[in-house]
């Protein structure tokens, strides 16, 4: 009896011990600066001198500012360009890579990760060159099949797809990885039953794998939503937010405030972003529930 009680006590205490190291680090290096940032968002502090309390001024400025909304618009368009394409590619690749009999499986797995670990600045060089309007390889190919030159990096219409491609290139391997870890926890017996039914691979993918992977897919979508809205390095190295601010993503717009030492507005901007991303995530979670 006492042994049972002490086991129960241990079970009650254990979670506190388990989360303690995390909570310590979290409080010290996330919450403490977070509080600072929250306060900063109500000031006009520029890094030097005293901070003046300005109330909701930074927030109202941003909400009434065309640049803020267009940065959100740009990120939304990028989201639509990136997420569907990336999900389809990653899903197909993950399903294929999950086959232990696949030849070159190990090679593909490593190959897909390579973009994620290649320094972006090195790749920015090739992007600018390949998508040059007059001498780039892509337009060269288009010309061969009789299509006109496209201003990939110089027009607001095409700069987003060009940037989206870079992002897809950079991060798809990571999504493949996540989907793979989800696939591996699916029970094989489910498939055996389906195979006996003679279902085609495509049908199996759509009507079995996708529903089974629902949680993992949603997880990947939420992660990529965060990443797309916070995206900053890609436009920074390739387009500097241009042309005409068409690739000024939400993350890049925020970065601009901070480099201009407008720290209060930057802080307010990041909290507005949190709310928007949170709202989007809730929409996805609801979609996920609706499918249940």
């Amino acid at each position: 009896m006492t042994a049972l009680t002490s086991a129960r006590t241990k079970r009650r205490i254990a979670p506190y011990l388990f989360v303690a190291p995390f909570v310590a680090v979290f409080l010290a290096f996330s919450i403490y600066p977070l509080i600072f940032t929250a306060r900063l968002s109500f000031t006009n502090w520029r890094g030097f001198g005293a901070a003046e309390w300005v109330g909701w001024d930074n927030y109202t400025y941003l909400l009434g500012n065309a640049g803020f909304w267009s940065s959100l618009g740009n990120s939304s368009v990028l989201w639509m360009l990136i997420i569907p394409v990336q999900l389809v590619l990653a899903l197909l690749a993950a399903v294929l890579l999950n086959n232990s009999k696949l030849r070159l499986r190990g090679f593909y797995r490593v190959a897909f990760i390579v973009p994620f670990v290649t320094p972006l600045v090195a790749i920015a060089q090739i992007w600018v060159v390949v998508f040059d309007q007059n001498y780039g390889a892509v337009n060269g190919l288009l010309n061969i099949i009789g299509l006109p030159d496209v201003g990939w990096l110089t027009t607001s219409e095409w700069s987003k797809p060009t940037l989206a491609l870079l992002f897809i290139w950079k991060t798809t391997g990571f999504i493949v990885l996540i989907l793979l870890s989800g696939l591996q926890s699916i029970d094989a017996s489910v498939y055996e039953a389906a195979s006996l039914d003679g279902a085609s691979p495509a049908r199996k993918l759509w009507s079995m794998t996708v529903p089974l992977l629902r949680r993992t897919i949603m997880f990947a979508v939420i992660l990529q939503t965060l990443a797309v809205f916070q995206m900053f390095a890609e436009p920074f190295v390739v387009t500097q937010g241009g042309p005409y601010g068409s690739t000024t993503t939400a993350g890049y717009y925020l970065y601009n405030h901070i480099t201009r030492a407008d720290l209060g507005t930057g802080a307010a901007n990041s909290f507005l972003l949190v709310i928007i991303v949170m709202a989007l995530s809730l929409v996805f979670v609801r979609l996920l529930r609706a499918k249940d």
Partner: protein
Amino acid sequence: MQQHQPRRPAPIRRVLVLGLAASLVLGVTACGPSINEPSADADGARLQAPSDKSPSGEITIWDRSGDLFEVFDAAIADFNEVYPDITVNHEAVDIDAKLQNTLITGTDVPDGVFLDDAKVAGLADSLWDVSDVLAPYVDDIAEQKIDVNSINGGVYGVPYDSNPGLLYYNAAALEAAGVDPTQIETYDDLLEAAREYQAAVPGSQPIHLEQSAYLGQLQLEMYASQLGTSVADAEGELRLDSPEYEQILTFLDTVQKDGLGTRAEYLNPTDIAQLESGSQVFYPWAIWFSFATQQLLPETAGDWRAMPLPAWEDGGAQSGAMGGSSFVLPRDGENSELAWLFYEFLMFDEAGYTAVWGPNDVYPAGLNTSIPSYGPAADPAAPLFGPVPELGNQDLWAVATAASSEIPPAVPTPSWWAGAVDYLGNNLQRMLDGEMTPQEVLKTSSTDITSNLIDRQ
């Protein structure tokens, strides 16, 4: 089909709302860290030279990586011959990413930093006023360089280089087409020469039109500098909507409308190809374009020459400043006065400036992408770097020092200058796209810069 339901976690929405509420409550209640307030005592911020006869100590100097870093690095040995007891800790760092944060937090602050002129004003609060130590030299320094570093009567940077705008032109191509570049004295003449060249070489696009919003705005400021103006006056008041700017924009608009320009980003593949093919033959740019002729244009190497910029009207100034850097000394540096000795040596001592611009290991023919801003160093009769073979052995030193002396007085660059690219820089590109008139560019940009940048200071 999850066969094992885990203990259902709380609905994600509730969890999120809880978290947000917690962070807001914590944020608004004043239990966070306090914002530190560095002393902003302007009077006590004038740097004095050390009185010690043989000063000693250690200084940390930040520079951008690259060739210039190597040049400065090599000059340290020369410096130590004069000041053997000062140890220079020379570091290549990402200055844009690091300096502002370092100054704000006041941690491990370097004693001296290489900085764009355009960024000095924004950081002046945490820099030493060097006007006292600079006093013996100030009369000999290019006026424009002192001006850009002067804020409220103080001088916040030790001027490094002068970057006069020059007109680079493909002399061989022009000669073959029968166009005489020596006749170009004003921008109207330049337009005329471009038309002549285009008539001789059909399909050519003779004049460079910058397509990068940032560099386009930088070049616009070069043109403005020629006219003695800039986006903001000494008090930081916007003065964009002026006849000077309208004249410049109308010129650029004409080049575009009449099909006389190559629209490309500085030295991107299109730009290089147009330069090498003889289609683009006029490049009004800062002196540092000389590196392109030396490294990136082998096919037309030797064909290029430089001359002072055309004037906006007869007898007007034939150059304007485009870019340029200075050395700043953060107030929180430990041995700022020793760092001053280092910069004093580099810029105002013959051994110093000869080590920088003269022939050295990195640049065997000398550093010819800028000239000194210190008069005695920039003596037209005593070139520090030699003739440039890629410019047909032209004496670039003579051209540049003459142009530099033409640059009109200036004012400091406002701290929001780079931010203005979103408005002025972009609108300039829209004009070159044919979507805006020069007047619209100036009106719209003024309104937007005022409400988004100046009013938010």
